């Protein structure tokens, strides 16, 4: 493992959290981002579960892509393979966590099965292919992307908690105001860009 590889992995990790936040600049995982952000506690649970899953599925998918699909010339099957790996991993993680860490299982609860259809997870696997990351970079990107989702959803939940007593126009309540708040957050995150760049 060369030093440049480590540096680039670190850059990717931080860039994925701040300058290229998976939710606020790549619009991934928005469905659960908006629907689960009503409470801070549940958003922390979901965010942690997503970060856990993205880190591992990105690495597994990288290994399968580069050691199985590319040699066999089956690259076009990646969508099916990735989604099956993700669904399988989520199932496996659910069973393993229930068995070995019941407390964590209860904390994550209903959020684990939901992750299969979270587009952030598949999105991270697809981005790591397009950007041609190495394994270490992929792990960094998976972790960073997941943490970026965690940061985003917790901040949004906190903002929604703050505005619950504000007088929001009736037609804008619920999803509407959450989308506008996300826009303001995205604007703030644009301010980070220029700090770091990933291609």
């Amino acid at each position: 493992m060369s030093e440049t590889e480590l540096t680039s992995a670190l850059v990717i990790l931080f860039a994925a959290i701040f300058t290229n936040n998976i939710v606020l600049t790549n619009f991934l995982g928005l469905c659960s981002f908006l629907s689960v952000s009503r409470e801070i506690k549940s958003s922390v649970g979901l965010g942690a579960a997503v970060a856990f899953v993205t880190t591992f599925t990105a690495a597994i998918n990288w290994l399968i892509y580069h050691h199985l699909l590319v040699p066999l010339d089956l690259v076009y099957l990646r969508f099916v393979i990735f989604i099956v790996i993700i669904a399988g991993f989520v199932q496996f993680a659910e069973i393993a966590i229930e068995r070995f860490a019941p407390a964590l299982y209860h904390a994550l609860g209903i959020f684990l099965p939901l992750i299969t259809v979270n587009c952030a997870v598949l999105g991270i696997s697809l981005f790591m292919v397009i950007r041609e990351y190495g394994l270490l970079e992929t792990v960094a990107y998976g972790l960073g992307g997941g943490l970026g989702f965690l940061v985003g959803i917790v901040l949004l939940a906190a903002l929604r908690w703050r505005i619950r007593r504000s007088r929001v126009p009736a037609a804008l309540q619920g999803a509407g105001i959450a989308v506008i708040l996300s826009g303001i957050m995205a604007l703030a995150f644009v301010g980070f860009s220029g700090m770091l760049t990933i291609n």
Partner: protein
Amino acid sequence: MNGARDIFRNGILRQNSIYRQVLGICSTLAVTNLLANTLVMCVALVFVVSMSSLTVSLLRRVTPQRIRMMVQVMIISTYVIVVDLLLKAYLPDISEQLGPYVGLIITNCIIMGRAEAFAAKNKPWPAFLDGLAMGLGYTMVLMLIALVREPLGFGTIFGLAVLPESWTRWAVMAMAPGAFFMLGIVIWVMNLIDPPAKEQQS
């Protein structure tokens, strides 16, 4: 069984996936800064959602209940692969620009949602129409958002300059925040024009 007219009214207006159910918005925001990309994305989505609804419905009697989600995901991915290969072959530039978002049609909640909520319980023809209607509802909103974002962000419509050079481009419209603001505005306006049923507000 619903008539075709009801299915369309439902899919395009009443239960519009974007502004009413707030589903499938990842791609909504990511591709709408250029009209051409948006149009391709919409055609791809309409194809995938209507064909997978049709297939899910055709297979609904032989799909075991326990693994139906997996079966649905496989059906959807198959159609997405078809779309991806077609785009790569005939529209390589746009395929490049859309990047991962074509593949992400698989996790677009609209498609899974319709497969679960409608196609798995209905006959093939209504299921196909329902998919088509949902897809068209999605297309309507996306084109609307793109029609604002592209001129304001780039000064063009479908790549043709429509605003004079002296027009100051709103960079924010081409970037992420503009997408969020436009979606928020669409939700706001549509809720004003056509208020949702009471139980959804509580």
